[in-house]
């Protein structure tokens, strides 16, 4: 045993040290990033008095309560709100991915004046604070009968394309064009070319863009608060905000409620991560 280890090359030992350093740095940084979320988690098991007596401490006999979760679950009308959030998030993200990747692809491949102007227009739109367009947007929305869930999805697509196109644009630039040229010679039409040749090359960026959009839409409060006007249509963030009143803020229920909102998206993220890592290894083998 010892022999085999000493036989191992210096290179390998260096790698082990490097890994140990990475792990230590990773743990320290991880704690720093997790700290507020851990506080949130701890407080979700305390009663309101416990939170305000000692926000940092572990729950003790006097302050521990498991009841925040069932209460928050009921208050949020969790199953319904979850489904509302889920449908809106999935549909919006899928549409954003589709229309943005299509647009970004032609914007990269056509080096015309129109193409660069349109790209800049999309980019510039990212600089507009939402609060500046919300009043006129609601006038437009009302005129077009978009004050409902379908309208909300369309609005997400409108707002989501800018960032997504920029992301796809940056990525596609690094994708060699030869493959597409070859396929065109083989007689692919535009649609085939895009879906058969281009899309498979975009899978890592697709997932990245999907993550960013899912996260934004899942957590968004302001837009649904303006557009959703029927009880039973509300998304999770809309319901979560009802823990906060004019003069009374239920941090105990809100912390539990927030954990309930975070969990699905963490699961989603971890699932995507697996896929990204797998995708990369696939790519390497190919």
């Amino acid at each position, binding site marked *: 045993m010892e022999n085999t280890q000493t036989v191992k090359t210096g290179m390998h030992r260096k790698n082990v040290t490097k890994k140990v350093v990475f792990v230590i740095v990773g743990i320290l940084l991880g704690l720093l990033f997790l700290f507020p979320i851990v506080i949130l988690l701890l407080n979700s098991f305390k009663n309101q008095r416990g939170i*305000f007596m000692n926000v940092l401490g572990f729950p003790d006999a006097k302050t521990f309560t498991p009841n925040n979760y069932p209460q928050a679950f009921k208050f949020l009308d969790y199953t319904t709100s979850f489904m509302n959030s889920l*449908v809106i998030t999935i549909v919006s993200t*899928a549409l954003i991915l589709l229309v943005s990747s299509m647009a970004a692809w032609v914007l990269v491949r056509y080096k015309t004046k129109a193409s660069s102007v349109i790209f800049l227009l999309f980019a510039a739109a990212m600089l507009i604070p939402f609060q500046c367009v919300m009043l006129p947007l609601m006038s437009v929305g009302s005129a077009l009968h978009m004050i409902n869930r379908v309208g909300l*999805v369309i609005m997400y697509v409108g707002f989501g394309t800018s960032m997504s196109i920029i992301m796809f644009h940056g990525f596609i630039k690094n994708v060699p064009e030869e493959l597409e040229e070859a396929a065109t010679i083989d007689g692919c039409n535009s649609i085939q070319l895009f*879906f*058969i040749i281009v*899309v498979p090359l975009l899978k890592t960026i697709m997932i990245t863009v999907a993550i960013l959009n899912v996260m934004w839409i899942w957590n968004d409060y302001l837009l649904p608060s303006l*557009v959703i006007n029927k009880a039973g249509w509300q998304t999770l963030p809309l319901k979560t905000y*009802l823990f906060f009143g004019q003069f009374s803020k239920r941090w105990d229920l809100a912390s539990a409620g927030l954990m309930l909102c975070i969990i699905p998206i963490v699961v989603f993220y971890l699932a995507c991560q697996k896929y990204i890592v797998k995708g990369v290894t696939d790519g390497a083998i190919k």
Partner: protein
Amino acid sequence: MKGKKLLALVTAGAMCAAALAGCGETTGASSGAAGSTAAGTSAASAGGVANGKNVSINIFQFKVEAKDAFQKAIDAYQKKNPNVKINMETVGGGDDYGAALKTKMKSDPPVIFNIGGPQDVKDWNSKLEDLSDQKWISHLPADSLADVKDGSKVLGMPFDLEGYGIVINRKMFEDAGVSYDSMLTYDGMKKGFDTLKAKIEKGDMKSKYPQLEAVMEYPAKETWVIGDHDINSTLGQDFKNATEAFNAKELPFKASDGYKKIIDFQASYTTNAKSRGTLNSIDYSTSLEGGLAIERVAAIEQGNWIAPSVTSVDANVLKKLDMLPFPVPGFSDGKWPVGVPMYWAVNKDADADKKAAAKDFLNFMYQSDEGKQIIINDAKFAVAFDNYGSLKPSDPLNQRIMKAVADKKTMPGWVYNGAPPTWTQKVAGANVQKYLSGEETWDQVVKNCKDQWKSMRAS
């Protein structure tokens, strides 16, 4: 192979998306249809009810704390009037109702909504239905409607009655040998607070109140506390009500010394008495849930609206509380600022039968026996109406306000609603923060407040 699989995935995804989008549309449509059929059946079942025309109205309101109570009233009303369908939306998150309402009016105008003082009445005037023919008006004292009157028109219905002052932990003061009655004036209060302060510093209170740190907390981060409320009694010396303030081109600021005194007073009893700038980071929660409600401090300037918050932390503490008058020394000793902060309004542009239903519902909620029960016991409001009989709010803070009203020991509580928009918070409040941090002298605060009032009125 891979390419094909992915293509299949993507197309499946796209189709799925399309299907879902279509699905969304159909659900929307079908739920609408379902809604109308349901309404249809209920109308049929309620065939006997006169003018049984189907009406649906929507309410857009700001009071998260009372939303369950309002829903209870809605359910009760709908049971009695099956042809009326009421959909209530509540704006969560705190205090951006004004922005939400403006946007809402663009997209999906509500039939019933909330308005504040004279500025709102002016801004929303074209949308406000005249309610002066409503029966409930005869049960209100005239001054409760002063700020929503436009000539002979009454444009709003009082939401509730609120009052504020120095909320104290009465039990704690009594344990320190200070009686409630000895603190009804500024001087008396100062004496009592000094006594408690000395006992806290000596450690005499430690055994009974282990959390107790200081007599007061002062959330100077909240400009609605240091601006709106703290300046109100001062404005009350210049103007009789919000409307008078609203019409004033200039601010006399007669009692500006009193304003300074009450600020200095509150700051001096906090743990940050020697580093007052730090108070600018203390927020409402730290002072209330993390202060008064856990007995870390013995007093804060607040109102009857804190009862639900205190209960959520410790219901026992609520029982120990009481409210002292809000003293502007030399001006308002022994009086509580009380008034109507918000009103219900009915949208003038709505259809006639919607407006009728809306008025009928509001009347039901505040004037029927069932509604009164809900307003007092579920919403836990104090009200200005004189026909609530023996129905009385149960907590000590609301009771103190009701007693002050009965004893005529009140002063107008919402005069600040008549100041130029944002003046109280963004001018008075911000300048007080500068004063606390030592950036400005008091004379500068007074000068800025007066100058800004004038220039905001001019623009």
